């Protein structure tokens, strides 16, 4: 399965990163609209695999702790419903070699 393989690949790469975790999510989805969304673009394009769908409730799970702060999800979401802010001062991902 390519998808599973890719998820594993992303996880391994994220494991190399340092984060200053914030307790508050800087990403917010609109679950009502997410439930109606068929494309699930955010779950496909996010380079950090932040978004997934809960198999039981169908709601969007947002693992904001893994966010690389690129901003792709906000622009790609066909319904423009992702509320995207920067993480709080000093928190979020820390690139040291990029």
């Amino acid at each position: 399965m390519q998808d599973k393989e890719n998820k594993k690949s992303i996880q391994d790469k994220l494991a190399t990163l340092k984060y200053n975790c914030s307790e508050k999510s800087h990403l917010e989805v609109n679950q009502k609209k997410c439930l109606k969304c068929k494309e699930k673009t955010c779950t496909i394009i996010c380079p950090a695999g932040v978004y997934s769908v809960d198999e039981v409730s169908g709601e969007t799970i947002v693992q904001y702790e893994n966010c690389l702060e690129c901003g792709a999800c906000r622009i790609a979401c066909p319904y423009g419903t992702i509320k995207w802010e920067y993480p709080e001062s000093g928190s979020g991902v820390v690139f040291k070699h990029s």
Partner: protein
Amino acid sequence: MDKKYNADVIVVGAGPSGISAALEVARSGKKVVLVERAQYPGSKNMYGGAVYTTALKEVFREDFDAIPYERVINSHTWAFLSDNGSFNITNNDYNTKDALAIKRFNLEKWMIDVVKRHGVYYIPNTLVKNLIQENGIVYGIKTELEDYYAPITIIADGANSLLAKEIGLRNKFDSKDIILSVKEVIKLDKKTIEERFHLSDDGSMGVNKQYFGTDFGSIKGIRNLFMMTYLYTFKDTLMLGVGVNLADLTRNKLNINQILDEVKKHPDISPLIKDGEIIEYSAHLIPEGGYKKIPKLTSNGVIVVGDAAGFVNGVHFEGTNFALISGKLAGESAINALNNNDFSERSLSVYRKKLEKSFILKDLYSYRNVIERLYSRSDSIAIYYPKKIKQFFEIITSANCVSKSVQIRKFVFSIFKDRKFSDLFKDFSSIFKCVMDVFFGK
């Protein structure tokens, strides 16, 4: 506004454009505050891998000599990838020092050290939430802790520029104008890198490779995708990344990491990164809307610079130089406004005039249609013609005991067989138009 000003100028964002703007203002003796959301300068930033010397020298002057770069990038290759190999054009010039490989963590740290010495007041760890506005005039910034006031605010908050959006200087992004790029930093022995890339051990030589075309790979949707792979040599790391249009990713339901992993398997690339250890993975957006998508650059009390203003020439991978110089010009415009005690949009619009006189808006203007034109013919320009050039070279270099004239004739006929006459016409007219645009410029 009866609040007391904390500074003459506030700059939001300590990347190349913001730092350059702050330095320019500080040099004139004005009071400037530079605010950055990250704990360490540069730790939110990511790029292909090289910064350009000319712009750095213009901004940092005598301080430039101490820049802690890892390697000079003076070997450039364009490679067109296919399933079983590639067709390459390389230019080596070991006397040049036009581009330097330096990690952003080190680049921004060095830049911040310099500008602090020149009097810039640097405030890290501080996220700007909003701009302070009254009657359509910007008077400063709101952070999580306190407010700062100044007659001029320079917006340098990068590709996503939430602030430029907030005050209506730019519209919502269209995903077709945005490139998403991811990159791996791959650790290898310094000596191994020097052997693999034929480099000296003193940092005076370095390699940049740009790989075009995706006529390879087994993932559905990756073939014929308009994308770019880049590789830069650092001291003991390689930077390997890909950039793909966000609209293409969405349409083809592709995750960019999948593409990067596929690229790493290509026979031209895999031996170069063999046994390397990934020590970092990063992602970033590149605003490539070009001239037509430039936001409004000034308003009352505010100026936009760098990525926040969409100053990128995607065809030539130029961004940091646009950022540095636009920052400098914004700084000059701010000083001018302070001296005249006029912070209106009209007074600050001298910034746009300065940009128009510089290479920034000249280049963005002459390239205004180039990406669109190349993109519309990407199947032919990025895949078909490179394939044919490769075939042509194979004819020249193979000793297969078949008459050359037979082979060449067959080759030429194949082009007319493969492509409709109307396609050939469209291909060449779009290339011709691009050349004319750039040649006549502005």
